[in-house]
C-alpha cells in the first residue's frame, strides 16, 4: 500500500494488521453532534435517516476523521423491543421504565423482527445511504448492544445483577433470546454496508462484573455471538476496565478492544500485542473543559502510549462524544492527530509521558 494515497479505510485496515499506516487513525464517534450541524433538536435529528446521513457527512468533512458512525443511540434497540425512550435537549436519549419487570416476564419474551421495526429500519437506511456516498473511502461502524449488556436497559441493572447471581435459568433464557436478536441485527447492518460492528459490552468489564462470573457469563455469550457475526467486530467496554480480562476478551473472536482512561494505555497495548488492536482512550467527560493545548497534550499522550507499531485507533473512551464538547476542542483534537500522528512516530522516543 502506498502510504501517500491512503484513504481512511486503508489507514484503518493497515493499523488493524499491526502495521504502521501513514498516520494514526482517528475515530470521532459522533452521535448527537450532527444535530448541531443541521440546526435541529436531537429528537428531530434522529427522526429521519437523511438527517443522520447529512450530519455524518458534514462532521467528517469538518474534522477529517477516519470513520462514519451511523449509531443513533443505545436505547434505539429498546425502542425496537417496544420499550420507552426519553429524549433530552442536551444529551443522548435514555431508555425509560424497563419492560421486564420480573424474571418470569422472560418466559414470554420475543425478540423484535428487524424487518418490521421502524427504528431499526431507519438505522439500516442510514447505513445504506452512507455506503452509497462513502463507498470504500472510510469504514462505516455499525453498533450492537451485546446480549449480555442490553438487560441493563431491558430490566434495570439492579434486577439484572440479581438475575445473574440468583436465577441462572432465566438468565440463560434471556441470553439465548438476546443472542438471536443481536446476531440478526449485526448481520443486517453488515448487509446494509457497515464495514465492522462495534459490540458494546460494558457489563463484561471488570469494573462491573468480576472475572470469575464473566467467564461463566459474558465471555461465553460473546464467544457464541461474535462467531455468528459475519464481519469484523470491535468490543467496546464503554470506559470500563479491560486489563484483568484482556486475554479472555482476545479469545472471544473480537479484533479490537476499547481501553479505558482509568487504565494505563501503554499497558493495554502491550497486553494486546499481536492479538487485538486498541481503541481509545481520550477522556470524553474531561474533554468538555479541555483547552486546545490540553487536547493536544492528551492526543500526544495516547499516541505516544499506543501508536508505535500500529494496532491502534485514537478515539474517545466511551464510544460517544458528549454533546457538551465544543467545536474548538474537537478541531484541536483533529489538528493534533494530523500534526503528531504521522508515521514514523520518531518524536515518541523523546517524549516523556
Amino acid at each position, binding site marked *: 500500500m502506498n502510504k501517500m494515497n491512503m484513504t481512511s479505510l486503508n489507514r484503518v485496515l493497515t493499523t488493524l494488521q499491526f502495521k504502521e499506516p501513514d498516520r494514526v487513525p482517528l475515530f470521532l464517534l459522533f452521535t448527537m453532534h450532527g444535530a448541531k450541524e443541521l440546526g435541529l433538536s436531537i429528537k428531530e435529528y434522529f427522526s429521519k435517516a437523511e438527517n443522520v446521513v447529512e450530519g455524518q457527512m458534514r462532521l467528517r468533512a469538518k474534522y477529517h476523521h477516519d470513520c462514519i458512525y451511523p449509531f443513533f443511540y443505545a436505547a434505539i434497540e429498546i425502542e425496537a423491543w417496544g420499550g420507552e425512550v426519553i429524549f*433530552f435537549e442536551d444529551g443522548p436519549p435514555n431508555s425509560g421504565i424497563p419492560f421486564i419487570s420480573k424474571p418470569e416476564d422472560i418466559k414470554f419474551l420475543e425478540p423484535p423482527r428487524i424487518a418490521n421495526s421502524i427504528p431499526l429500519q431507519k438505522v439500516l437506511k442510514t447505513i445504506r445511504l452512507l455506503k452509497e456516498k462513502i463507498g470504500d473511502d472510510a469504514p462505516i461502524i455499525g453498533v450492537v448492544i451485546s446480549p449480555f449488556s442490553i438487560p441493563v436497559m431491558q430490566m434495570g*441493572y439492579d434486577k439484572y445483577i440479581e438475575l445473574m*447471581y440468583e436465577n441462572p435459568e432465566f438468565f440463560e433464557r434471556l441470553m439465548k433470546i438476546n443472542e438471536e436478536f443481536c446476531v440478526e441485527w449485526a448481520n443486517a447492518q453488515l448487509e446494509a454496508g457497515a464495514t465492522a460492528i462495534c459490540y458494546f459490552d460494558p457489563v463484561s468489564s471488570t469494573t462491573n462484573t468480576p472475572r470469575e462470573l464473566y467467564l461463566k457469563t459474558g465471555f461465553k455469550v460473546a464467544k457464541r455471538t461474535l462467531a455468528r457475526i459475519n464481519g469484523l467486530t470491535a468490543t467496546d467496554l464503554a470506559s470500563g476496565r479491560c486489563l484483568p480480562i484482556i486475554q479472555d476478551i482476545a479469545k472471544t473472536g473480537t479484533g479490537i478492544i476499547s481501553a479505558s482512561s*482509568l487504565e494505563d494505555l501503554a499497558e493495554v497495548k502491550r497486553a494486546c500485542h499481536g492479538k487485538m488492536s486498541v481503541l481509545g482512550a481520550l477522556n470524553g*467527560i*474531561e474533554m468538555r*473543559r479541555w483547552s486546545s493545548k490540553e487536547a493536544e497534550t492528551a492526543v500526544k499522550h495516547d499516541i505516544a502510549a499506543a501508536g508505535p507499531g500500529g494496532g491502534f485507533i485514537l478515539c474517545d473512551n466511551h464510544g460517544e462524544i458528549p454533546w457538551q464538547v465544543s467545536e474548538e476542542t474537537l478541531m484541536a483534537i483533529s489538528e493534533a492527530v494530523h500534526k503528531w500522528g504521522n508515521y514514523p512516530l520518531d518524536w515518541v522516543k523523546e517524549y516523556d509521558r
Partner: protein
Amino acid sequence: MLDLKQSIPNFKTAILSLDQIKAKKILIDLSDSFPINQVIDKLIVTVLEQIGEGWEQGNIALSQVYMSGRICKELVDTFLLPSKQGRKHKPKIALAVLEDYHLLGKRIVHCVLRASGYDPIDYGHGISVDELLKQTQKEKIEILLISTLMLRSALLVKKVKEELSKAKFSTKIVVGGAPFLFDDQLWREVGADAMGRSAFEAVEIIKRLEGGLK
C-alpha cells in the same frame, strides 16, 4: 471473647461470596457481646468501606458491590434494626437520581446507608430539578445525595445548588456517579459540597458534613 476487628475478614468473605447465612451467624454471635451500633459501625461499615476501596482500585466489581450492600441492608433491616427505633434520624438525608433512569448507584448508596443505621428518604429516579427542589425544601433536607450516570444530569446539579442557595437553604449536596469519576473537577464546578468516589464513601462524607451542620 469475640472480637469485632477479628471478625472483619470473615464477614467480608461471607458477603462477597453471597453467603448470607454465614454473615448472619457472625452478626448473631457478635450482637450477644457488643451493642448493635458498635457492630454496625465497627464491622458492617468498615467492611463496606473496604469493599468500596476495592472497587475504586479495580479489584472488586460493581455487581459484587451491589450484592454486598444489599445483603448488609437486609441483615440490618431484618435483624439488627428491624424498626425505626435505634436508627440515626439526624441529619435528615435524602437521595435521588437526577433526571437519569439509571438507578443502580442510588440503590447501592441506599443499601449502604440503611446498613449503616441511617434512615434516608428515597426520592427515586428520573426526578426533575424542580421536583427535587420542591421535595428538598418541603422536607427540610440537610444532606442531599444525588446520583447521575449521564453528563447532562451531572451538570444539572449546579441548578439545584443555585436554587437552594437562592431560597436560603443550606442543604449540603453530595454527588456521585460516572461523570464525577471521570472528571475529578466536575463536582466543584457544579457546586457540590462533596463527591463520593464509591457508594461506601457516603457514610464517611455524611459524618464529615454532619460536623459542619452542628
